[in-house]
């Protein structure tokens, strides 16, 4: 296996106890490779979002361990976790990605500004040119379309050159055309800029932009696929459902 950007080892997440016990994650072990675009798929309640949140350090495991690069997350304090998120991890959410009181550029620079860093301006300019919103940098989120907002979110995730970017249904709120644009940018961020992305999605079309798909079912890994295309993915999902 090539070097991993993030790993989960025997990761379990249990909600409730006794009869009402729900095993959202049930002993998942997985590594997300550096410089690759990985998609996590699975039906509702399969634990795909929980896996992502736990690996990203947003949520904690009941048992098992997760690591970003060489850093084990379980032992980190809230402050260390925050710093790790700011410097090593990028996020793209389905909606409500941007702070309404800040303009596009300020939103992109936010993780860097929070850490009091200047950032690599050459890199940031490259990112901004890649998302193609140079003429919109002074605009507030309310003045941008949904697709533009998500492109700003992608840029923000890229700005600090994180070890890994997690995306949670980044195109869930977009129509297929603008969604395709956003996914295209994510693809280029991996292929051209050498970034690492882990994306949770239930959309076969979105998943087909990735290098590798991991399928989850009932909190366990049900299989995986490399070099996906939409037909292959849909076919596999049909099997998974049976």
């Amino acid at each position, binding site marked *: 296996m090539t070097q991993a950007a993030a790993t989960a080892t025997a990761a379990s997440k249990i909600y409730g106890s006794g009869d009402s016990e729900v095993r959202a994650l049930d002993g998942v072990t997985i590594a997300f490779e550096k410089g690759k675009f990985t998609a996590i798929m699975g039906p509702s309640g399969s634990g795909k979002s929980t896996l992502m949140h736990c690996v990203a350090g947003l949520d904690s495991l009941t048992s098992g361990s997760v690591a970003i690069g060489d850093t084990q997350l379980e032992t980190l304090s809230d402050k260390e976790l925050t710093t790790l*998120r*700011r410097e090593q991890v990028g996020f793209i*959410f389905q909606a409500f990605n941007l702070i309404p009181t800040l303009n596009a550029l*300020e939103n992109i620079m936010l*993780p860097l500004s*929070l850490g009091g860093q200047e950032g690599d301006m050459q890199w940031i300019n490259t990112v901004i040119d890649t998302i193609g919103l140079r003429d919109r940098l002074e605009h507030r989120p309310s003045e941008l379309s949904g697709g533009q907002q998500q492109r700003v979110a992608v840029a923000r995730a890229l700005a600090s050159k994180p070890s890994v970017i997690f995306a949670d249904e980044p195109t869930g709120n977009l129509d297929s055309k603008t969604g395709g644009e956003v996914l295209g940018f994510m693809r280029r961020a991996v292929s051209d800029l050498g970034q690492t992305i882990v994306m949770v999605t239930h959309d076969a079309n979105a998943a087909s932009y990735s290098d590798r798909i991991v399928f989850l079912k009932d909190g366990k890994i049900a299989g995986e696929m490399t070099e996906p295309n939409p037909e292959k993915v849909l076919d596999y999902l049909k099997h998974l459902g049976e």
Partner: protein
Amino acid sequence: MFSLSLKMSLARKGRLILTSLAIILGTGFLSGTFIFSDTLSRTFDRLFTDVFRDVDAYVRSTNFIEVPFGGEQRAGTPIEALDSVLAVPGVKDATGDIQAFARIIGKDGTPLGSDNGPPTFGGIASASVAGLWNIEDGRLPNGPSEMVMDRSSAEKGDFVVGDTVRVNAQSGSREFTLVGIANYGDISSPGGATFALFDQQTASEFLLKPGFVDAFLIQGDGTMTQEELATAVNAALNPTLKLETLTGAQIAEETKDQIGAVVGFLSTFLTIFSLIALGIGCFVIYNVFSITTAQRLRENALMRAIGASRKQVTTTVIVEALIIGVLGSILGFVVGIGLSRGLSALLAAFGVDIPTSGLAIRGPRIATTIIVGTLVTLFSAVFPALRAGRVPPLAAMRDTAFERIGSRKFRFVIGAVIAVIGVAAHVAAAAGVNDWLLGVGVVCVFAAVIIYGPLIAKPVALMLGAPLARRSVTGAMARQNAARNPRRTAGTVAPVLIGVALVTAFSAFAASVRSEIRSVIGDQFGGDYAISAPQNGFGGLPIALSDEVAALPEVQQATGLGFGTVELDGEGRFVTVINPATASGLVDLNMVQGDQSKLSANGVVVSNNRATTEGWNLGDTLEMKFVDGTVKDLVIEGTFIPNGFFGSYVINREAFAGTTNSLFDSIIYVVMKDGVSEEDARAALGAVSEQRGLGTLQSREEFIDAQADQINQILGLIYGLLALSIVIAVVGIVITLLLSVFERRREIGLLRAVGMTRSQVRFTVVGESVITSMFGAVVGVVLGIGEGLALIGTLADDGIAAFSLPLGSTIVILILAFIIGVIAAVYPARRATRVDIMQAISTT
């Protein structure tokens, strides 16, 4: 629909409590004032009913003068008439009564009771059953060297029967042997006053005038009604003595009324401040409803979408207001009970022993509190409720709550119209058209600023936040958050703004008065030392003291200055009383005509304003009537330019010769001989004044400072009462921040997810809070200084010409506002840092 609204409101207990806080505090102050003044008047009612229990008839002089600003001074009653009263059939017993100034000097040489505390009386203790005092220990005083004092003073001064006690009174300072300790009715001392009691003859010559008492207390033998007895007594009185007879019930009633007037004034004063607090509470309630309806936008839109009418949506908000109003007012009344106890405890701490038999809690007061509180809440909720009803059903699809400012143009025009009216009223008031225009002006200008609030909120918040924004991205976010909802920010700021503006205006006014007093006293007072008596009570320094001081070997010159009440030109007036023989160089009137040092015993010097208005000329005569009915014609012997200290009339102290009008000096000005050291001067002057419990000895500088600082006492009281309004304003900021944090929890969650630390989150909330409170403080200070200027401009005719900026207190206010901003943010910031990232960013 009503029950549904009820259910929806009760489901949000946290918000109910938050909103109620403002109304609880506002109505609490109001009901506290009610209960306190009710308790006070009931206490005095009972006390005087008790005290005059055995008095069936009351004889007093018909000569009296109405004192300016209320009250009266009545002439003495000649003791010789007592025999004719005792001879009336049906009179069982009768005795003279005196209530005059006397101060008991403690064993350590300091007077009992503070200068600013309750009055210190001298009176008569007699064996008569009609007397007011009961001897508890020892016996009645007999002869010119014996006295009795009230039990409370004896305890305070650690006196026992047999001690030698020094007492100061109008006629001077004397030592007595304490032969007894007495109770007033059933209590040790009414209202914390001190009493030195003597036999009638001693009391008359020491406290009043030989041969006179204030009144006769008469007890009947039970064969006649009080009315019959009073009529019989009155018929027996020599008509040339100008006496009248009241029944015991009448005098008790009259005394109660006099106290009632004082209590009434106090309660009016307190009520004004509780109404200010309620008004400020209005803004907080309005703001909370505005925010919560904005946050419930989707909920309300959903209701509309599934078929609720506008009216129904509006009703839910009104019902919530009704619940909050009623609940808050009831709780407010309970808080008021505590507050009134606090007020009583405060007075007790100042030595006012109010014998309360429980608090007076009256049904109508409870009703008033609840009705006022509920109406205020409903009134504050009307506009937010209407806005809630106007929500389009489509808004259910929108994401965040943003409040829109209504028509900016409309707001701008209305604000401008009101501002113009306000300024015009100020100008008219300053021009002297009518003083109530000042009130109209103040209200209009405040209203205009409040109306403009949402328009200026954004630019002002951005401007004030600029230094923060330059520091860090968190500062920039704090600044943007303070500016993002201008209406909300303006609503939060309004209470702070009003409170700060009032404090600043009072400070500006007080600072100006203070500097005016300083220059006036500095100008007219040329001495080295001053011996002064408190000018807020009655009594003062015996007039013989100034001559005694002047005779000291270290003293070059000394003169006494007093103030009296006489009826002059048909009206009760204060007159300044000087000793022209010694005044030159120490008390200098700015004479226009005539010579101050030649003021005769039958002369008067008037201010040139009065002379011009009345058309008086030198040589004209003014009729002056003294309290005892003596009438003298005074010749106008000069005019002077008034300076706010001497009033409009100055007479010679010799004018009082031969009357029973009590006369004291308020201040004695002293110039020392050359070469007398400060130490020697203080020792010599102190020996005759302070060490005998007479007045306070101060150097020129100390005296001027003390006079100028008198205004601080009033200011302190006003600050204290405004403090509650400030508390409500702070509660307003806390509530707004809490609601904003709740509303932005997803945003905060996102920020935490992308790497904002908890302390950065905290900083954002604190920054927003500080910007908001500073906004209120800065605009409030500007408004307050403007109003202070207007106030002084309007009152300039009364002798206050100079405006002086209260720089010190302005800086203190701004610093306080900063601290308040930080404190108000503590709890909301903690809530913000505890936002759960997972919950906040989950899309469901």
